[in-house]
C-alpha cells in the first residue's frame, strides 16, 4: 500500500471490513453479505459527509442487490462534474470485483473498457484479490473509482473531452 496517500489510507482503515464470503447465488449467506455491504456503505458515506468529502450516491436497483445505480462527482477548478454510476455484482463475487461503469464517459477515454467500464486492472484488482472477502462495494469505490476520477477527470476536462453542464448548455444555445 506504499503508493496510496495518507488520506486514502486513513479513510480506508475506517471503512468496516466484511467477513461473509458469499455471492448473489448463495441464498441466505448473500443476504448476510448484503447487510455487511450496507453497513460499510453507510459508514463510508457518513464519514465522507462529516469530512466534507461527499462524492457519490449509490443504491441497489433491484431487491436482490445484484445491480446498483447512482451518481458520482468530482470537483475540478471549482466546478462540479457529475456522472451516472452503475455496476452489476458478478456471479463470482467476491472472488472477482464489480466492474464499475460510467456509461456517459464511454468512448471518451482509453482507460476504459467497452460499455464505460473503468480500468481497474493495475491500481485496484490486485488489492481486491489480496483482501477477498474483506473488501466490498465501499472499498471498490474508495480504492477503485475515487483514484480513477482523480486521475482522469482533470485530463478529460483540460482536453475538452467533457464540458461542465453550464458550458454545455450555453454553447448549445448559441
Amino acid at each position, binding site marked *: *500500500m506504499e503508493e496510496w496517500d495518507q488520506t486514502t489510507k486513513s479513510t480506508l*482503515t*475506517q471503512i*468496516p*471490513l*466484511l*467477513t461473509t464470503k458469499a455471492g*448473489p*447465488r448463495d441464498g441466505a449467506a448473500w*443476504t448476510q453479505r*448484503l*447487510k*455487511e455491504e*450496507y*453497513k*460499510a*456503505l*453507510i*459508514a463510508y*458515506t*457518513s464519514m465522507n*459527509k462529516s469530512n466534507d468529502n461527499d462524492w457519490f*450516491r*449509490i*443504491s*441497489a436497483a433491484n431487491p*436482490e442487490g*445484484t445491480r446498483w445505480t*447512482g451518481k458520482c462527482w468530482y470537483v475540478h477548478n471549482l466546478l462540479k462534474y457529475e456522472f451516472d454510476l452503475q455496476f*452489476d*455484482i*458478478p*456471479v*463470482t463475487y467476491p*472472488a*472477482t470485483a464489480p*466492474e464499475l461503469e460510467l456509461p456517459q464517459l464511454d468512448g471518451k477515454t*482509453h*482507460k*476504459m*473498457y*467497452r460499455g464505460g467500464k473503468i*480500468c481497474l*486492472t*493495475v491500481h485496484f*484488482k*490486485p488489492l481486491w*484479490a*489480496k*483482501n*477477498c472477502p*474483506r473488501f466490498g462495494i465501499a472499498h471498490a469505490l474508495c480504492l477503485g473509482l475515487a483514484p480513477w476520477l482523480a486521475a482522469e477527470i482533470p485530463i478529460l476536462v483540460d482536453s475538452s473531452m467533457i464540458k461542465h453542464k453550464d458550458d454545455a448548455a450555453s454553447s448549445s444555445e448559441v
Partner: protein
Amino acid sequence: METELKEILNELNSLQNSLLDPSHQSQIHQLQCRIERLSNLAKSGGMHRSKVKDMSAEVVDSNPYSRLMALQRMGIVQNYERIRQFSIAIVGIGGVGSVAAEMLTRCGIGRLLLYDYDKVELANMNRLFFRPEQVGMTKTEAAVETLSDINPDVVFESYTLNITTVQGFETFMSSLKNKSFGPHKEGSGVDLVLSCVDNYEARMVVNQACNELNQTWMESGVSENAVSGHIQLLVPGETACFACAPPLVVASGVDERTLKREGVCAASLPTTMGVVAGLLVQNALKYLLKFGQVTPYLGYNALKDYFPTMEMKPNPQCSNSACLERQKEYILVKPARDAAARAKMEAEAQSATECPIHADNEWNISVVDDSEVAGPDVRSSGILPDGLMHELPSADGFSNLPVSGDGSNPLDDLDELRKQLEALNADKS
C-alpha cells in the same frame, strides 16, 4: 443465366463455322473466351451446398469431408465421423473464439454453442474471420451467418449475453445442461467448453460453471502485448482449476509494468491469435477424437519461439468450493483409474518385444524414483526458484481493523439498512 450464355456460345460457334472469311476468326475466338469466363463465374457465384447425411471418404472434388476422412486411412484417427456427435461451447467470439469456431465448423463438428455480448467493430478487422460489412452486427449473429454458409451440417446455437451477470449465468448454465442434441450422453449437454474470453472475470465465471457441472474445459489466452499466449486443459478435480493458482507469482523475464503502458487498449495480432486458436482446436480434436497426447498446458512465446508445457495439480486449499468437491470425488475414483491405466500400460509393454535396451552400462546409470522429493522444499520455505518472484506483497495488516457488525451499528435488518443508506443519499449536506 447459365443456359443463356450457353446458347450464345452455340450461336457463336455456328457463326464461326459458317464464316468463310478468316479475318474475323481471332475476334470470334476472343468472344468465345469471354463467354466461357462469364459462364464459369455464373457457376461459382452464390453456390450453397446442401446438407450431407453421412461423411464419405470418397475422393472426389465435391466431397467436403474427403480430406478429413483420409485421417482414418493414414492411421491418425480411428473413427473420424464421431465428430458429428460432439457438441462444443465456445465462450467469447473474438480474435481466438471466432477462428476456433471456423476451424471446428470446417471439421464438421456436430453442434456449436456460441456466447458473446459484443458487436463487430472496425477495430476488430486486424484479426481474422469477421468482415467489414458485418460491422454493427452482434458477433454471435455475424458468426452464425458466415459459419452456416461454410458448413450447413453443423447445428449452431447463439447466445448474445454477458455470462458474468446473474441472469446471463443462469442461461449459460441451462444451455450447457440442455441434452436435446445427444439425449444419451453422460454428464452435461456438451462435450467440451472452450474459453476464448479476454478478461479474468469471465474466465472465473467459466471456471465456476465447469466446476459445478464437472465439465472438462480448455482455457486460452493471448497477452496484452500480442506476442505470447497459452492454452490449458482443465478437468475439474483432476487438474488445477482457474481459481487454484491465483496470479501471485509471475515470470520475471520481462517486467510486467513495462508491458502495461498507459491506457487499456490491448495490442493484438492476427498471427498470434491464429496460432493460439490453432493450438486450442488441435488440442480439442485430440481430446475428442482420441489421438496423440492431449496437452495439459502449452505456452507460446512469439519473441523467443518458446513453447513451454507443464502440468498443474489442483490446490487442496482452493478458494472455489465446487473445485474442492470435485477434488474429493476424484480422490475416491483415483485408485481404480490408476489401476486401469497401469493394466493398460502393462498390456502395451507386453505386446512390445522384451529385451534389455542396453546390454552394458558403462557409466553405471540407474533410474531413481523421484516421487519422494528429497531436495529443499521450495513451497514451505517461501523461496522461489530463479526467475520467479512474488507479484503482490504479503497481506496488509488489516486483521486488527474493525469488522462490520461490531457495536458501531447494531442494526441487522436488511430493509432498515437500505432505508438508512437511502436517508444518507437523500440528505444533501
